[in-house]
């Protein structure tokens, strides 16, 4: 299975709910745990202060992006890393291909990277004849199944323990009742060989420090450390929005990101990569390539409101708290980034028409904005894209016509009340099937019952 774009969101979400109820159960249960842990972790610090600070650091970096990117490049080169710039996914895959050819790469191990998912790295490596293996346990599971990730932090969040038990039984012959620890041990054993054999390690990057040319990586499993230090070549794929000015900024951001993502004070492993192995180093790659990827990010940056979404540190907190995301997981969103953050960056990165209907895939409940560690005004940005969608004529014409007529009536109280009185005599269950705006309502719910007398009528007659 691969993504086919956001436009099938409604059909895909309906299908997931109907055909695979275990997805909803798995996602709800896992996000409940994420939420409880984050809430506890936020309560241990002055999270409002930390989040204000993080917002300001990231905004500052984004408003001086050109300057900091150049500084990062200079420092990376001075550290002995090679720096590449990719404007599009196509460019990034081309650069990857060159490195693979130059170094005669036959096998690759991958640390978890959403950017690599966005770019389609695995498919391209396979196309080049490279054996590629995901090494994050969740990524490993979905690679074995042949699915894209369903969550930014927990890619296999939509899979139940039973799914994994069955998968590992079929893949490794482990007993069907093996618990999570035994399954992880089986994966560890299989992956150990892959790590040792790999020519190339591919990672993403949580932060890129301009002043020192450092790629910072947070993880829990140790697979990123291994992927970036064992193979002879390391490629770090880094979105240009990951830049921060100073190393000390990372010290705060890594803690806040960990708390927001998993509720940990800091991830189990934290790597600061400063370039290839130096004389006297025991291990480390011979070459480090940093590919700086745009792929729609400057387009998002150019939007006068939605640029704030580029502050995102990919913690997944907005997905975990989102009651919409929690029903289906990430697959119905139709592209790499799901949930509230996916819905507000899709229009900027893919184009608004391509991203429809994601800006509408929200009840605007506002739960996300209370959790975001970098204070992205998510509901405001959802509305911003909805307003653009209206301007560009991307919303259904029946909806436009309906709301225009409704507005006209609302400006004329007499007509508004007369229309209300009339509607109360139409049985909505029957009317609902005929009116497109109501058909969605009565599909899943009983039609609402109108009051016997409107309030305005009661008021006119006198309220005792």
């Amino acid at each position, binding site marked *: 299975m691969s993504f086919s774009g956001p436009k099938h969101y*409604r059909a895909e*979400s*309906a299908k997931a*709910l109907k055909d695979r109820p275990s997805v*909803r159960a798995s996602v*709800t249960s896992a996000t409940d745990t994420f939420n409880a842990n984050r809430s506890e972790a936020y309560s241990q610090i002055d999270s409002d202060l930390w989040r204000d600070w993080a917002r300001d650091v990231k905004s500052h970096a984004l408003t001086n992006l050109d300057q900091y990117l150049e500084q990062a490049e200079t420092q990376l080169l001075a550290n002995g890393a090679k720096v590449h710039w990719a404007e599009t996914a196509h460019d990034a895959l081309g650069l990857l291909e060159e490195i693979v050819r130059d170094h005669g790469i036959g096998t690759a191990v991958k640390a978890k990277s959403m950017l690599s998912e966005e770019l389609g790295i695995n498919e391209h490596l396979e196309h080049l004849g490279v054996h590629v293996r995901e090494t994050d346990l969740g990524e490993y599971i979905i690679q074995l199944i042949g699915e894209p990730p369903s969550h930014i932090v927990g890619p296999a969040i939509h899979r139940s323990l039973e799914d994994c038990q069955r998968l590992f039984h079929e893949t490794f012959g482990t007993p069907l009742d093996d618990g999570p620890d035994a399954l992880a041990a089986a994966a560890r054993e299989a992956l150990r060989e892959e790590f040792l054999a790999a020519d190339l390690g591919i990672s993403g990057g949580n932060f890129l420090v301009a002043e020192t040319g450092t790629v910072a990586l947070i993880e829990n499993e140790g697979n990123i450390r291994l992927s970036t230090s064992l193979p002879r070549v390391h490629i770090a794929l880094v979105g240009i929005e990951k830049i921060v000015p100073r190393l000390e900024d990372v010290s705060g951001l890594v803690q806040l990101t960990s708390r927001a993502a998993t509720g940990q004070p800091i991830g189990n492993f934290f790597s600061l990569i400063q370039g290839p192995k130096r004389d006297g180093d025991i291990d480390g790659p011979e070459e480090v390539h940093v590919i700086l990827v745009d792929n729609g990010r400057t387009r998002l940056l150019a939007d006068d409101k939605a640029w704030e979404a580029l502050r995102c540190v990919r913690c997944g907190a907005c997905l975990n708290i989102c*009651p*919409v995301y929690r*029903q*289906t997981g990430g697959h119905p969103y139709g592209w790499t980034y799901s949930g509230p953050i996916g819905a507000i960056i899709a229009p900027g990165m893919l184009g608004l028409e391509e991203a429809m*209907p994601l*800006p*509408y895939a*929200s*009840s*605007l*409940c*506002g*739960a996300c904005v209370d959790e975001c560690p970098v204070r992205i005004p998510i509901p405001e940005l959802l*509305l911003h*894209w*909805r*307003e653009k*969608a*209206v301007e560009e004529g991307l*919303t259904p014409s029946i*909806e436009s016509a309906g*709301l*225009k007529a*409704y*507005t006209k*009536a*609302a*400006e004329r*109280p007499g007509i*508004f*009340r007369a229309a*209300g009185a009339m*509607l*109360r005599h139409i049985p909505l269950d029957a009317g609902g099937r005929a009116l497109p*705006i*109501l*058909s*969605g*309502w009565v*599909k*899943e*719910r*009983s*039609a*609402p019952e*109108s*009051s016997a*007398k*409107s*309030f*305005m009528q*009661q*008021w006119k007659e006198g*309220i005792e």
Partner: protein
Amino acid sequence: MKAALFATCLGDQFYADACADAVRLLRYAGVDVDVPQSQTCCGQPAYNAGRRREAIRMAHQTLDTFDSADYVVLPSGSCAGMLRCFYPDLLNSELERAQDLAGRTYELSHFLVEVLGIQDLGSGLKGKRIAYHHSCHALRELGLRNQPLSLLKNCGAEVVSWEADEECCGFGGLFSAKLPEVSAAMADRKLDTLSDVDFVTSTDGGCLLQLSGRGNRRRLSVQFRHLASVLWEGVGL
């Protein structure tokens, strides 16, 4: 004390008795209630759909309607949030008037507790087990959590704990019609985590329509009642 009741479009048609109970409640609390006849809709359906221009027109209509009211009281957190939080941005050509209206606007329980200083309405809910649904906009835009709960408890009700009480019911206006399957699943999450109660109450008609509509479709026996009516019962006259 004088206050104008904004029944809201949903309230007028679907929760008319609750609006009437809001009038009774306010009068009981000594408020001289007016219901300006030019009130229609606050504009939220258009605003949330991205139709800013239409939302501005309805906001103007509302602004003119309630210009002379000392207070505007709504049996809805969502519409109150619209006036308080979004009108100043929508009506920036008349910023001062919009801000003034925002400052005079209250959701019903908010008004009772913060403006009238009421804690105890009566004891008419003694023995009742109630689940309270925090509507998103009352909770997150207006910051209301304890106001409705303390009023209910002080009337003798037991407000039961509910794992999903602060989660969205899935209404979201147009959202419920555009994406009915996900919307219904959101309602199911609420309904499936409910314990045995006499009824569920909330201050927003939209949420109640959603939850009761879904509950009825699933033939669940749980009842849903608007906060205004429940509080009026709480007075115990």
